[in-house]
């Protein structure tokens, strides 16, 4: 059997008293699309940071397609096939949209010359940014910035795509457009892990869902079943962060 595309083995990470991952074990198979939900502070973004190499776990191991990458720095993981987006877009503001993706094609995908140009333009076509190729990224709107995050991640030619709340802050039609882009990428065999608060966008796209809370996996399985889980409902849907705050003040 082929090794899983991504395997987290007992990963633990704390910042002082706050634990963002507690003995977390999780696998993603090649071509699988996994959605991650959970309340704020559940450790979702830290989990991404540990997968992409921005953050080193205190203990445990990260495996990528059968290779241990726990100590591998972020840029080398990108070259090994992890493409990620950031929750708050981080465009290279003084570069054009085309150059933003081109640098990923050069450094992440290892392409050169005309090949890199073609690859970058194809990515821009697929993410609906082709008409903005010569626009400086600093001038983009929020939707365009979120798309550029996706475009840059794909520009590195990943095997595993990490999407961090790419639908947050978008209008309903914009969310549907983005879902379409992600669905197409998944249909082409890309492994996807998608953190999202816009749950209906996830349900349309992923085949499996995990709910995280306090650095633990609360539920794991078919999306509808996970969302119906009473523990998940209480944590994530029923009891919002506001209720949580009130409880804390009361105690």
């Amino acid at each position, binding site marked *: 059997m082929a090794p899983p595309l991504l395997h987290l083995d007992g990963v633990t990470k704390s910042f002082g008293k706050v634990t963002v991952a507690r003995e977390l074990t999780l696998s993603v198979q090649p071509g699988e699309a996994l959605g991650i939900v959970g309340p704020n502070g559940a450790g979702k973004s830290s989990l991404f940071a540990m997968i992409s190499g921005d953050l080193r776990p205190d203990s445990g191991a990260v495996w990528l397609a059968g290779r241990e990458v726990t100590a591998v720095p972020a*840029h080398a993981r990108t070259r090994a096939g992890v493409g990620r987006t950031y929750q708050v877009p981080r465009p290279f*503001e*003084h570069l054009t949209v085309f150059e933003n993706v*081109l640098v990923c094609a050069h450094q992440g995908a290892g392409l050169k010359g005309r090949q890199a140009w073609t690859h970058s333009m*194809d990515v821009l076509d*697929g993410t609906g940014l082709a008409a903005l190729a010569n626009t400086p990224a600093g001038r983009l709107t929020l939707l365009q910035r979120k798309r550029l995050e996706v475009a840059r991640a794909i520009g590195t030619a990943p095997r595993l795509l990490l999407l961090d709340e790419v639908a947050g802050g978008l209008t309903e039609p914009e969310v549907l457009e983005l879902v379409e882009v992600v669905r197409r990428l998944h249909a082409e065999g890309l492994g996807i892990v998608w953190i999202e608060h816009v749950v209906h966008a996830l349900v349309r796209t992923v085949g499996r869902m995990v709910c995280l809370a306090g650095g633990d996996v609360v539920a794991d399985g078919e999306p509808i079943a996970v969302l119906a889980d009473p523990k998940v409902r209480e944590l994530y849907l029923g009891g919002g962060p506001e209720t949580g705050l009130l409880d804390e003040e009361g105690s």
Partner: protein
Amino acid sequence: MTISQMLTTRATAAVDVTRAARSSKLSAVALLIAVAVLTALPFLVFSTVTDTLVNLFVLVALASMWNLLAGFGGLVSVGQQAYIGIGAYSVIALADLGVQPYLAVPLAALTCAVFALPTSWPAFRLRGDYFAVGTWVIAEVYRLLVVRVDSLGGGSGKGLTGLSGIDQVLRGALTYWVALALALATIAGCYLLLRGRLGLSLMAVRDEETAASSAGIDVRRAKQVVYLVSAVGCGAAGGVITVSSLSVNPDAIFSVQWSAYMIFIVVIGGIGSIEGPLIGAVVFFGLQQLLSDYGSWYLVLLGAIGIAAALRLPRGLWGLVRDRTGLSLFPVGYFVQKRDSDVVS
């Protein structure tokens, strides 16, 4: 087959990408003419003019190197005088060993690379403000080490040997050409460096470091390259200063004032572009010539101009020109020309 090829069902059309803006052909001609005139200058004007211009060329080189370091690598150094000093003393030492002083200048630049690599290891452990202070301290350490070497003249400095045999007019002209070559080499070096794949990475690092590393860029290595190139350029500038002044004084050559000049020039000219330091150096040089009679008021005025530029012109004078005209003397960007399959999306 890459993912992107699968990504679109449309047939891939040829992408036409150009590197030069339309205005840059004209500006290239203008630049060539300027270079030709500058090269011929020793035959046209008195040596007082060319001797003064040597200072301008040194400033252009130093500012270009600091701009590369801070504007592209995000490495705000206050210690590049370390390499100016090492370059200057290398020329003195090599000349003592019998090397022709003009030939010693490029060798001095290489010496700086040898010093810069191990220096970067401790320096790169520091971030932001600490890096700035740390580099200054490192420069001081180099000065203190140099003054302990008696054969280099100790604390009182040393004269340059090996140029006394050359006729004074010829020597002035040769020094001028070496300084011009230094300025042109640093600008051309920056241009070639930034135009390539590494350059695009550097510009990405300049804009967003975290995103740059997840784009696959080895940020630390990119910074190291920039640091080495900058050390080499500053070392060559130090060498030119020595062949121009014919002596070296440790307190003057390792002075933090060099860093102040570099920062001032880059701030008023515009950080993060090749043109900025060039314009900034010309403006600074002009101010120096105009205000040199006013004593300490000269420094007060320079400071006031620097503060005003930092507040009102965050992208410097060149940023102002570029925003108004779209001009680019040294195009390093990519412009997507057209695609046959352009579909309205």
